[in-house]
């Protein structure tokens, strides 16, 4: 009985795994909006870094006061500020 339950559990687990993989692989082709649905992505505020000079100024403050840098871009600041 225990063996039967264990076998069923393994089969179920494999089925879930296979289903998840299939969903993931198939989903990769369809994830995201179609080109005609990207109106919002064209807005300046939806760009990852719409105001680069201002981002650079803020990063410069943090870089000069903290031990960490980088993440959004390269580490270091191209200066002797830290």
């Amino acid at each position, binding site marked *: 009985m225990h063996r039967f339950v264990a076998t069923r559990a393994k089969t179920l687990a494999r089925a879930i795994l296979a289903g998840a993989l299939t969903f993931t692989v198939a989903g*990769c*082709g369809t*994830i*995201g*909006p*179609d*080109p005609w*649905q*990207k*109106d*919002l*992505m*064209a*807005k*300046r*505020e*939806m*760009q*990852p*870094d*719409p*105001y*680069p*000079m*201002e981002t*650079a*100024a*803020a990063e*410069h*403050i*943090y870089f000069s*006061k*903290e*031990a*960490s*840098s*980088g*993440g*959004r*871009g*390269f*580490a*270091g*600041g*191209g*200066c*002797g*500020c*830290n």
Partner: protein
Amino acid sequence: MPPTAADAQGGGYEGGEFGPGTFYTEQSSALLIYEEAGGRVMAIEPGATLTAHGEYGEQLSFGLTIDAVSGATPNGAVPADQSQTFVTPLKIHGSCSTVTTASGGSQVVCLPPTQGQLNSAERVYKTPPNTLPVDKGFSDRRVGFAMSYAQPLGPLSEAGLGAGYSLERDYQAITANGHITQNFNADDTTLSLSINSEIDSSFPYGGIPAPFSQMDPHFKPVTARQKTQLGFVVGWTEVVTRNWLMQLNYSFDSQSGYQTDPYRFISVVDAVSGEPLNYLYENRPGSRVSQSGFWENKFDFGPTVTDLSLRYYKDSWGVVSKTAELSERINLGQRSYIEPSARWYEQSAANFFRYYLTNAQALPGFASADTRLNAFTSTTFGLKYGLRITPRTELDFSGGYYRQIGNGHPADAIGQLKQQNLFAGTDAAFFLVGYNWDFH
């Protein structure tokens, strides 16, 4: 930062006159004014970039930044219940006479001529009892220049190269970088690889002190040291839904060479009383390897845009940090918006950070009392107001308050140091004006 899927969508340029397939120029400029509490550092930093976009996705960009920094900066020594005196080298032009300078009560004291150092002098400044030692003579200027070029290249969606040069009175940085990007999945997905290299030269006023040598007003024989840096960023950007943009970056960076702060002391105190006995120049490892993961999400909810980013950082000096940033852009009609923002940051201390050393212990391999290498939490709260003057011109004003919170009373403090606040962190306010203009 690495180019992204959204860049491929047109870089945020609605309308047919700007964006892919058209030639136009983008100007972005900002003026930053930064001031620390208690009369510490003040900085004024104007900067501007000009980017020309070509019909076939070409981008040529030039950037210029100027920095003027002055004020009082902690010199690394701990406070004491008695007055403390510090000295730094000083060049004298002409004959030397002992005077008191206007910059924060520093005193110029003539030194007996030594071989090759005629007209040598020292700048002396005193710190009152129970006060954090700061050097009020701190002042620097910086000019930074950067340029880059990118375009579609063969099967690649984009390939680009960039270079930068930054010069201060005592520091020079030369950077070079390159990147490639590829769009997939109807341009909903972008993968990017960016590589950065940097060669820095440090030529501090007074020369390079020997590690752990005693505070000394004489000019040192070694005048410059170098540091090299190599890093890369792998980026994945996904337009997940019509109103959700996501970016995930992994960064790796390796620095090698001189990374010590040549001006910074570390106090040596009596192991029982905690009274300062002397001051040594600090010493940091010559190698530092860091990694970070960065995850940013942008959600467009009609009149608002939410930006949430998280960062995890770790390096070979033992610093681990976590950062969370949240901003909410609220459009006030078609022409203006406000954007409140909050940032939370926490870091652990570098494994060689010491508030001070004692005369009862052998010198460690490395030690620094730099607050930036101490454990602390910082918070920033900001508010921005943006105004679209014309469809392609935007002016914005933002301000913020930055606060560092750390442990000023470590449990193992000794003698008089138990009564002192040993955390040298700061509060700071900043104000920024930004101007963005796109034109043909």
